[in-house]
């Protein structure tokens, strides 16, 4: 049995991110004051504290920074899953899962592209080998 992805706890500050995910789009926040991207997304830029942040469509591609596969899952019958940090081509590194393919073949530096996994709530962005 595949691991069931919990639905994200949505706040007003990040509702747009999750609505875009439902449409198959990955958004990333950019600050128009300092020009820097950040993740997780927030109203206030963590790099310069400006409130002039905007949503940008991410390319949806990135590189694996680190990953780990939990072999036994959390309970009976649940299959392994892979937690990862993926560095987006825009710059920020985000926590995610790697899905598709053989987990033993996932590597640091591997190119990946975003895919969206449905939940009981909004869809959740994950990454698969490009």
């Amino acid at each position, binding site marked *: 049995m595949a*691991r069931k*992805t*919990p*639905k*994200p*706890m*949505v*706040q007003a*500050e*990040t509702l747009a991110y*999750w609505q875009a995910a439902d449409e198959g789009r990955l958004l990333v926040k950019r600050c128009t004051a300092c020009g*820097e*991207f*950040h*993740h*997780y*997304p*927030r109203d206030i*830029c*963590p*790099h310069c504290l400006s409130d002039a942040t905007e949503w940008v469509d991410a390319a949806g591609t990135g590189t694996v*920074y*680190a*990953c*780990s*596969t*939990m*072999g*036994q899952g*959390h*309970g*009976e*019958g649940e299959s392994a*899953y892979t*937690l*990862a*940090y993926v*560095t987006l081509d825009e*710059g*920020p*590194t*985000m*926590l*995610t*899962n790697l899905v598709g393919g053989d987990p033993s073949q996932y590597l*640091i530096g591997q190119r990946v592209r975003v895919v969206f996994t449905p*939940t009981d709530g909004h869809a*959740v962005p*994950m990454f698969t080998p490009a």
Partner: protein
Amino acid sequence: MSLNGKAAIVGAYEHPTRNAEKLSVLRLHADVARGALADAGLTRDDIDSYFCAGDAPGLGTATVAEYLGLKLRHVDSTECGGSAPILHVAHAAAAIAAGRCNVALITLAGRPRAAMAEAQARAAAAGPGKDGRPAKPALALRPPDPDCPELAFELPYGPATQNLYAMVAQRHMHEFGTTSEQLAWIKVAASHHAQHNPNAMLRKVVTVDDVVNSPMVSSPLHRLDCCVMSDGGGALIVARPEIARSLKRPVVMVRGTGEAPKHGMGGRIDLTWSAAAWSGPRAFEEAGITPAQIQYASLYDSFTITVLMQLEDLGFCKKGEGGRFVMDGGLISGVGRLPFNTDGGGLCNNHPANRGGVTKVIEAVRQLRGEAHPAVQVRDCTWALANGIGGALASRHTAGTLILERV
């Protein structure tokens, strides 16, 4: 203001239990408070300040103070997970130096094992779930805080503690060529020490092969790379130096303190260093000594990789050389260059309430007093360090560094 010489640790006590089926959380806090008072030779009414973290229930300082009947003029409930008691020692020293109090009590206690067993019993009594399979107890004992904005971007992906630390280990291996066998040496050293501790959960001496052949929990970490889950706790009493000198115990002086949080930095993730790279240098500067002068180190050992990161970030070896530093018994008392966690640490002895900070300070105090087990006692131990990592190394955590001298 420098805290060097402003306060001393006069009492230290570790609860002997590792499974508190019949003891409440408050009873555990009370047990360790009584133990530390007896160790110091002080009485309850000598305490004028109290420090606790998130393991204390209810209103924390007020809830515990009520149970113990404390009359206080200073409280501090700094919460940063497992490193909190190490920060509490520094904050107590600062409060004493500022004239706000004279005798500070710090407690940490909990019963995650007993609570898990109770949750499993409740799940079993409830019968099978809708899918006909046995109901599973909730692993998290408290629901996630909906006001934590980061959780929406983490919880869907299943960040168990093990896989977060595993990513740190994987990245360290990638950048520096560190091996699973080198990480295993950290567990081997802890087990060599734990064999002499009658209270330790795991007293069997293990080999590098035992560690790397234990089941893979989350690649590349094996089961024996992980700390134990245990009930229990510990307490410390910090006092003004004049009071310390009036007691019948060796004086363990606070010489250096440092604290720092590290977090996701807006997505600029770098898993190759921890917040100890900030807290450590501050503590050494305050103490006026170098890492080479430390004779014993208590290092937070939630996982083997946690120890490796602290060794490098505190300056015991260069970044990337931790693997070679720990090999061939480098951390075994009487064998290696830096005896560590001579009580067996979190890897073998105790990780009460899933928080190891207080036991780190307690074993450092034992070493400085010459009260560690004779088989692991560092000869003429004058300088010791205790370091904590609270939270998760791969996401957000707070490091606390404490340097102590026997005077």
